[in-house]
């Protein structure tokens, strides 16, 4: 199981090629095997130029999709996974794992250790999941801390050396590239005990474990009798363990607050050594009842050096933290909007910041706004067709705030204003963030 080649391509719409190859790496020994394994169905790895063109076409990232083009738009040309076949020089290169994230297309070609005709199912190709993990690893490394282009460039320039460490021959040894970087830097000495490969060194100093829990609420509120509102919490538990010893054992136990809803869909970090079967089976698919496992949720593990996500979960909150009401009426060229937000009393009324975004799609730029807010201020982004209602750090005592107003739009200019295929007509949304 190995990768034949890997590419990072920045997507640059509006330029002649619509992208640039920022990084590429080929693995000739793997290629040698591919030639034998694939036999007559072998297709060589193309050079960067043709690959770029063909990949962007397949991913629909070229600017020109004005006309119907059979090789891309045919109804039988269906992609249900991020694995593609690319037309290169009359042949089809398959499988190509590729996805776009933050303006960069991540792509690699996993080795298939058998003939490609007929195509084996992806599940039977061991290198497919490795390819994904490889690309995710690079993505994490590039975007873990870098915010701007200069930092990104620095990280890109580190990649060749890093891959020499993490993937010298196309077989991925560690998807955590930061770990590889650390292990280059760690003074290497012989260890009396067996050192895990996922831990570059050992910690020396005061023992300390920090845990943070982040929760995000997704809610759909219909304001209709016959449709029930839905909401879901998505949580992540992040840990950083500064503990001495090569493999210290730690157990973290999570318990629910009184009347808290049980955790479901729990996914854990690979360092967790064992799990209660009740944790494994608790799932949001099941109908809720009182018999559901409600903790405590115990996670025994041996931590890596760096900060990591111990587990992810979902949960059903009994009520959404903010109840919202948003109405929009179109009157000629004007839109009348009304929005009310109500903070639930169980939520602590103290935020770092709290704001509501009110975007308008498929319309021209905002030319005029008249509004009244009971609390906070409204910022208008005319070109982006966006209103931001800045609520601040607290809701008022009444816990209820409202906004009403009329918005006028200019002529539509397709290239500049935001397009959305859901938010047409009177379909719109308001997003709160804090």
């Amino acid at each position, binding site marked *: 199981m190995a990768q034949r080649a890997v590419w990072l391509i920045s997507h640059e719409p509006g330029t002649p090629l619509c992208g640039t190859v920022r990084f590429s790496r080929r693995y000739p020994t793997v290629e040698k095997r591919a030639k034998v394994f694939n036999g007559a169905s072998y297709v060589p790895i193309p050079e960067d130029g043709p690959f770029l063109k063909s990949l962007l076409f397949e991913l629909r990232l070229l600017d020109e999709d004005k006309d119907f083009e059979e090789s891309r738009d045919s109804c039988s040309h269906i992609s*249900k996974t991020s694995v593609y076949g690319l037309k290169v020089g009359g042949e089809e290169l398959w499988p190509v794992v590729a996805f776009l994230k933050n303006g960069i297309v991540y792509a690699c070609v996993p080795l298939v250790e058998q003939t490609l005709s007929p195509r084996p199912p992806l*599940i039977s190709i061991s290198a497919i999941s490795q390819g994904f993990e490889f690309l*995710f690893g690079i993505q994490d490394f590039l975007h873990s801390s870098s915010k701007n282009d200069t930092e990104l460039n620095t990280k890109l320039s580190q990649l*060749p050396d890093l891959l020499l460490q993490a993937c010298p021959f196309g077989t991925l040894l*560690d998807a955590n590239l930061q770990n590889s970087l650390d292990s280059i830097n760690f003074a290497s*000495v012989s260890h009396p005990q067996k050192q895990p490969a996922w831990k570059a060194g050992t910690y020396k100093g005061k023992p300390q474990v920090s845990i943070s829990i982040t929760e995000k609420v997704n809610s759909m509120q219909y304001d209709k009798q016959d449709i029930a509102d839905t909401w879901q919490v998505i949580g992540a538990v992040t840990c950083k363990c500064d503990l001495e010893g090569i493999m210290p054992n730690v157990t973290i136990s999570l318990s629910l607050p009184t009347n808290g809803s049980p955790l479901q869909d729990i996914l854990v970090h690979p360092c967790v050594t064992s799990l209660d079967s009740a944790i494994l*089976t608790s799932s949001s698919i099941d109908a809720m009842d009182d018999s559901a496992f409600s903790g405590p949720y115990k996670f025994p593990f041996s931590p890596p050096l760096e900060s990591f996500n111990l587990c992810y979960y979902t949960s059903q909150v009994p009520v959404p933290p903010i109840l919202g009401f948003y109405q929009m009426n179109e009157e000629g060229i004007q839109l009348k909007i009304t929005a009310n937000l109500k903070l639930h009393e169980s939520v602590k009324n103290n935020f770092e910041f709290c704001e509501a975004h009110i975007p308008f799609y498929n319309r021209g730029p905002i030319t005029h706004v008249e509004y009244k807010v009971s609390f906070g201020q409204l910022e208008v982004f005319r070109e982006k067709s966006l209103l931001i209602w800045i609520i601040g750090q607290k809701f008022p005592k009444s816990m209820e705030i409202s906004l009403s107003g009329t918005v006028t739009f200019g002529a539509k200019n397709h290239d500049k204003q935001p*397009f959305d295929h859901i938010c047409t007509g009177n379909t719109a949304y308001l997003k709160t963030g804090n």
Partner: protein
Amino acid sequence: MGPLSRETWAQRLGAFRASPSAFMAGPEGEDLGGDLLNDLRSEKLSEQTKVSLLALSLEYPAQLWPDAPAAEAAATSLLDTLVLLPPRPSALRRPLLLAATTVLVAGGALGPTSGASLRLLPLLLGLAMGRDLGRGFGPSSEQRPLQATAYECLRELESCKPGLLGGCLGLLRGLLGQEGPVGPVQPLSLLLAQALRNALVIQARAGASLQDLLTVKASLTAGGPWNWTLTAEGGTHLQPQAPSWPAAEKEECGLSALKPSPEEARELRAAVAQLLDTSYLLTPVAQAQLLWLLGWALRGLRGQPPVLFKPQLVRLLGTAQLTLLHAVLALKAAFGEALFTAQDEALLLRRLTVAAQHPALPLPTHLFYLHCLLNFPENCPLGPAGEEATPLLLEPQLCRGLLPSLLHDPMALLARLHLLCLLCAEDGEEEGRGQGQSPQRYLEELLASLQQRAALSGGPRALATLCFQASYLVARCLAGQPTVLTPLTHGLAQLYRARPALAPHFVDFLDRVGPELGEPLRVVLQQEVVSRPGGDEALRWHLQMLARVADKDAQSATLSFLQAAAAHCTDWGLQQALLRACRALLLAGVRGGLADLLQALARQLEDPDGRDHARLYYILLGHLSGPKLAVALGPSLATPALASSLVAENQGFAAALMVQEAPAPIRLSVGPYRAEGPTPVLQLQVEVLEPVYSLELRFRVEGQLCAPLEAVHIPCLCPGRPAQPLLLPLQPRRPAPTQLDIRALYTKPTGLTCYAHLPPLPVRFADLFLPFPQPPEGAGLGFFEELWDSCLPKGTESRLWCPLGPWGLEALVSCHLEPFVVVAQPPTSYHVAIRLPPHSRLLLRLEAAQEDGVPVVLRTDDWTVLPLVGDYLRGLAAAV
């Protein structure tokens, strides 16, 4: 050549990477490999630059050293460089090891006869075992990374040459079990697993004793010979692996023939257990590799219960790590019920459904898990192997969270839709069972919303494509269910009504779906089109659609639609679309009304091409019976009986619209020189081998020595009929010879338009000569002297010997220089003045000719022409 600088290398590497094939074909390509190896030892280059050179040899060895001898030499050189490194820390040792390994494998040089292989293998093994290799191998701080690298190199060699390390299995096991200070566990485990797996496959083929391999301690000493026997037994080539997936034939699995003895089985179990016990020390991706390798190794081995894996599974099921869960699925596929009970299977499915929709995971992961669900390796599969299906234990309840919605990304929507279709198919089989909203109802609503979204005018094409992809998926999965197909048909007809510009999608869709949906959809679309007024602004799309859907039914409506449309077909494209629709009717066997329509079109259409076609169709309709018409218009050439011009019409129509590349029936040559006019004029003679019409000749001047030339048009040329010479005025930018690159575009007598690249024509130096205006009678000498003096001091003077042929000076001058002579004293002395456009002049004194030559004194105000003049004068005698 000395070592190149850092900048030069950076530039060279950049140029190479931009396009390796172009670079290697260029002038620098040949030396690149050699320069690279040399400069690795240069003391002037920094380590950083050298690492980038090694990076190139890691990626492109096959381009740099394409054959085995070159690869062998390169690997030897890399190993020499490694040995010669000074004993201080260096960033080059690891990449050098990696590069030597890569070059040997990629060049196909690895083998018992290769000197470099025989040096590299013991070196790697020595490093891996932590042997002291002397000071040359760097400080002790570098030993551990080098050790890990050596293991990786060995593993790569073993992967590419299975059995290479078969003789070291016992040794490697010993290293893994070692107490006290130990080397890195991960690379050692992976190497052992790889070697073990390969040894088992080879053993199954060749029957070597497994027990010996697993227990024999290191028979290799640092200087001892390497054991190549297993690689020979395994065949010198890699064999495509027997896939571990059960869908592939079980018999092919190479291991089924292996029956280990009880002792062997015990040793094997111990080795596997040893590897699994330390697997928690490996990174998740490496753990996954280990599980795949061991799964491959043990699958099909008799007497090897896979319970060894069981303790690992509980730990692995909780994670969402893609590689780990995938490896668990591989074990499931390999061992089935022997490792997973029905309850385990249900739990695994449950975890997969959770992972396939977990909001904390990225989209590509969701999609892969969805794929895994539909290809799940079940203990007791019901359906045919190799087809996507919902697993038996995946209850509809579990799938509730996996239903598609409009808010999903297109790929997620299609993947979920497929699952929904499979559920509907099951549901259809056991009708009346479900409670709550039936999946079919859900599907119907989803398709309706997709159609609504595709109908948005100005929406991106991707939305329309998605709608048709979804419809196609439904039509394929649920072909036998009219309750689904009928609303789909009507929905699509509505979509067409709202947005006729999607006609190309409809045509594509109709071409691909089966008759269950295709036929009813065709009928409603035809009705949809012909119910429109003819002058619709979407006429283009309606006609395109009609060309696909027109048939015998509703012919009167169709004909009256076309009749009405004809008035609006003002441009060539629309007329062709109209005729295509007529042709479709012709093929469908529509007669009566069509004849009238075609006759009307043959009169009425503005474009002569359109009229001709209409007339042709009319004649065909009048003279051929149905089956013959089908053959005449059909796409097949396989019916020679009727392969007359009628069939050619069909083929020829498309060909006639295209420009064909062809060998030219045209010959061009440069005619005699004409010294007239203000600029030099090239006289071209044109000859043709067959009649050529509307010939257009396009010229390109090489090196841009002249101003660009206009294209020349000739209406008609016939062979044997003398043609007027073509006069091509040149506007030189510098007085220098050049070449004309010539392309011809012409029409053949058959009507095809062709394109040809003609051989280039030379523009000689002498073709650029122009005379000075003739001075008045008698003033020639004064005029010449004036010119002569004006050349200096800016210009230059030179003396040449111009050889004379047997004809003497007089003949030479009259033949070549006549128009330029200013003063003549035949037969011995001539003064020649030549204008060289754009701004230069050339003056020659040919005096006191001798038997075999004449001394020439020349002056010019442009010294760059001197070599050209020399060549010209020396060539004159030969050319008389």
